[in-house]
């Protein structure tokens, strides 16, 4: 379990990194946290000829929060985003999801953007980005483009990132007013990839009735599966919505597969259970949010829960 030979590039500026990526094309691979890439290389399942190590590009480590959302830089570690009080205030789903990502030592090293680019449908962050309708900013020599989540994840472990491109940041939109989120998952062991997991976003209207409810499912298809359950759960008051009907809608939409840890049937059943739990919890949080403030940014800033 030793990697085959490769060239290690350690650019000191973004421009230099983009030059190397342009020169190496499909033979180049970006190294950020390395939590997925290095094991793949050690098992010789991946053999990039060039590793472009971006760990010296300190400017990419920023987590910027604003009223409209959170922009996470390519070098921001999971732990850094998880601990950011500002990020949690603007979009609480980030912390809710990151706490479920693997183990602390992996979160200390692994990066949020790296997880998005790795595009594992069993991972939490792709589901979060998909649910929130966020985007990934891709830079290449001579330009950048923002790719919306719906177009970014193209298949299992496949994304819209092209040869020569570097994902420099990801943007997670802020929690809308009178909205709440939750993330529920079941894994075999603490910290494992989830057998099933559901991120939920519920928005209420002025009368605290469900205005919109969506769920994003992990391990439920080739890419994160986002299901709009607004119609299924009915425009009921938050406390009286039919979350079981929403769960049924989720079960009908997803396409889980058998693997060595669980059958597709069990995953389908479990995803429904977790969808009901997550939606109910998100609705509860939305009511709380509506009581606290009209705007997520302000509410979160006051919360200031120690980052």
């Amino acid at each position, binding site marked *: *379990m*030793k*990697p*085959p*030979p490769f060239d290690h590039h350690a650019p000191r500026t973004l421009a230099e990194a983009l030059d190397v990526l342009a020169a190496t094309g499909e033979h180049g691979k970006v190294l950020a946290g390395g939590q997925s890439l290095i094991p793949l290389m050690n*098992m*010789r399942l991946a053999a990039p000829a060039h590793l472009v190590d971006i760990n010296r590009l300190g400017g990419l480590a920023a987590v910027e929060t604003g009223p409209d959302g959170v922009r996470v830089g390519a070098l921001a570690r999971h732990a850094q985003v998880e601990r950011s009080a500002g990020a949690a205030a603007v979009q609480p789903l980030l912390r809710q999801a990151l706490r479920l990502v693997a183990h602390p030592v992996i979160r200390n090293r692994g990066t949020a953007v790296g997880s998005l680019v790795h595009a594992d449908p069993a991972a939490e962050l792709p589901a979060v980005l998909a649910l929130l309708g966020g985007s990934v900013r891709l830079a290449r020599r001579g330009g950048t483009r923002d790719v919306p989540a719906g177009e970014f994840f193209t298949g299992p472990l496949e994304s819209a990132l092209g040869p020569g491109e570097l994902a420099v940041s990801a943007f997670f939109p802020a929690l809308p007013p009178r909205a709440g989120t939750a993330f529920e998952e*079941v894994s*075999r*062991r*603490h*910290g*494992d990839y989830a*057998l099933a997991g559901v991120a939920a976003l519920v928005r209420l209207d002025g009368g605290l009735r469900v205005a919109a409810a969506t769920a994003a499912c992990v391990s439920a298809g080739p890419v994160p599966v986002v299901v709009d359950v607004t119609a299924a759960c009915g425009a009921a008051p938050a406390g009286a919505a039919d979350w079981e009907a929403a769960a*049924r809608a989720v*079960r009908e939409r997803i396409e889980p597969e058998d693997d*060595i*840890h*669980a*059958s597709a*049937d*069990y*995953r389908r*059943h*479990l995803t*429904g*259970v*977790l969808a009901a739990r997550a939606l109910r919890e998100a609705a509860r949080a939305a009511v709380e949010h509506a009581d606290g403030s009209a705007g997520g940014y302000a509410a979160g800033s006051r919360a200031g829960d120690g980052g």
Partner: protein
Amino acid sequence: MTTRPFGEAVQRREDPRLLTGRGRYLDDLGSGALAAAFVRSPHAHAVVRDIDVADALDVDGLVAVYTWEDLPERLARPLPLLIPHPALTHGRTALPLARDRVRHVGEPVVMVVARDRYLAEDACALIRVDYDPLPAVVGLEEAARGERLVHDDVPGNVGAHLVQSVPSADGREAGEAIAAAPHRLEFRLDIERSASMPLEGRGVYARWDADDASLRVYSSTQTSTSVRMALAATLGLPLPKVEVIAPDVGGGFGVKIMHPWPEEVLVPWAAMLLGREVKWTEDRREHFTSSAHERAQAHSVRVGFDDDGRVLGLDVTILHDHGAYTPYGIIVPIITSTQLPGPYRLGAYRVAFSSVYTTTVQVTPYRGAGRPQAVFCMERTMDRIAAHLGLDRTAVRAANLIQPEEFPYDQGLTFQDGRPLVYDSGDYPESLRLLKELIGWDSFAAEKERAAAGGRRLGIGIGCYVEGTGVGPYEGGHVQITSDGRVHVSTGLTSQGQGHETVFAQIAATELGVPLERVSVVTGDTRRFGYAVGTFASRAAVMSGNAIALACRKVREKALRIAAEALEADPRDLEITDGLVHVAGVPGASVPLATVAVLANPLRYAFDDEAARATQFAGASPPDRPPVAEGEEPGLEGRGYYSPIRSTFASGMHAAIVETDPLTAEIRILRYAVVHDCGNLVNPMIVEGQIHGGVAQGVGGALYERMVYDGHGQLLNASFMDFLMPYATEVPHVETAHLQTPSPLNPLGIKGAGEAGVIPVSAVIASAVEDAEGIPVMKMPISPSELFDLRRAAGGPQAS
């Protein structure tokens, strides 16, 4: 510090070293050695047509490439079949490197030696082996059908078939007793594959000294003495020219008692051939596909019983999957067969097993070694009987227990050591009473009802076992007291973290009357002690512990004799306390053991002040006698050997309370209780630690671990991502109570403790899940997905 630390919860002396990164494991040694790597079969079953190494030769830093063709005659043969047995009629072992056939994914085909491991793996990747794939044989059913053969000359894939039968007191065979019983049941029980999975894999590091024509080998092994003998034989070296050392070993759990591994002979051979140090460190993927697994067994049970649940006849037919080869013989199914009766007096018992070949990794003992299967089988049977009769599960067990006055109890079987299986001592009814009290068995029904009212599902389970420990043939110990008053203890068996440095020192300090700090212990180093068997079968404390005690008693006797002369006293009046030999009741009349050590070794040359006291003009020995009396030896040292007539039998009972989630089918262990009896305790803290570790592995076997082979014989979960060993977060707190019924078989009255914890866990968890769910659990391990399937199959209310 007490000088009688036997029985005290002394802190482990090895921990400061091991816990602060100062352990020296195999890969910490030989930083300048060449690295070996292996090309291994990617096919479960194939003919090897051709091997083309041409491309690999261009790798910079390549030193050598070896295939079977390159091996000398002694190495080109199949590896030893370590434990032959008359019933193993078709035993087969692998060649160190495959010649023309591979029989499991991971079988070594080519050895590469290079400047470092990276380069060696680069070269491996460039070697092209042309295979002609053959059909794989995976799973017990496929193997037993015998349509596809793993070995062309083994018809039906059956390596061994063994039947043992014990008639009832009135002379009836099991079949007859079952037929005549008031109640009868018949069912099948299955256990899946798992593995020892030590965190440190195997590893070998060899140094050939051409000037001295001697070989030193470090191996991450559970038996350095036997590896040494195997190497001397295989490499044609005189035994005194071979040294084998087991350095710190990061876990064994059984897999490292297997030897010699292909790598274990090939690496030293290459070191000799190349005149260079060579090292191979197994990586995790290799460990999954190239070492050994265990546990896979199916059991067809027929049982007859009376209205009280007393077993009148039991007939068990076992199908055992031993993988592609049988280097360790058929020890695992033999142990299942013979340990199955557990703490019970069975009316009549018949057990038959067939051990079959599959194109998967070979099977050798893993902690518990066939007992988890045996206990799963017996204890599930007890639960089935209870369910059938509507009796409390502990009442059925109580009706069958062997009573304290029945010891020694002969089960009428032949155990794994080829000797009669006779229980030496135990108190099973007391053990059951203690367990019920510890877990609160009798009040659980009310607790379960309360939980059910709140929508929660709880269940309680129980499992009982008897474990033959401390099998022979022997172990030895050497004890030397040097003129600085230090006590040097060595024994040939090896350590994998059990705490031998602590417990053997406790035994020596107690026997000799010296402070614990003055005792040092060396294990697994053939330079210090050449005669040993190894560390397995919960035998180290029983075997080496008693051998060391016997060695100490010899040394003590000699010390008292010499001190008696110096003190002009009768040796019978002397005692040793705190390293001082003194006349009982006469303060001041004493001589330190250090001085006795000086006097024990008459010298001509003084090298320090102490030594000067033993020189020829110092008057240390009377001039009218030879300085070393006839029949005596110089020095204050002694050897002792302990060779028991048969095994000693430890026992225990476990209970657990689990909660199953009605919606997600997750299974959580809320409480886990253990009553354990391993005779006299040398160190209760270490025994508890062994139990905790065993339960942790048992939880893995019950709820998480399995080897998932597909129909092509590919192991689908050969990594720690997908082979789910439990983390600390998955292991429950273990509540423990000890019972001590000393063994009458050995001087210290002790029994083995190493494997105990793991043995009944699958039985206990199955029992508890069944209680929570009201659905029979006949296969282990069980995952949430499988519990979901069981619920659905049972047609019960399925929330969705």
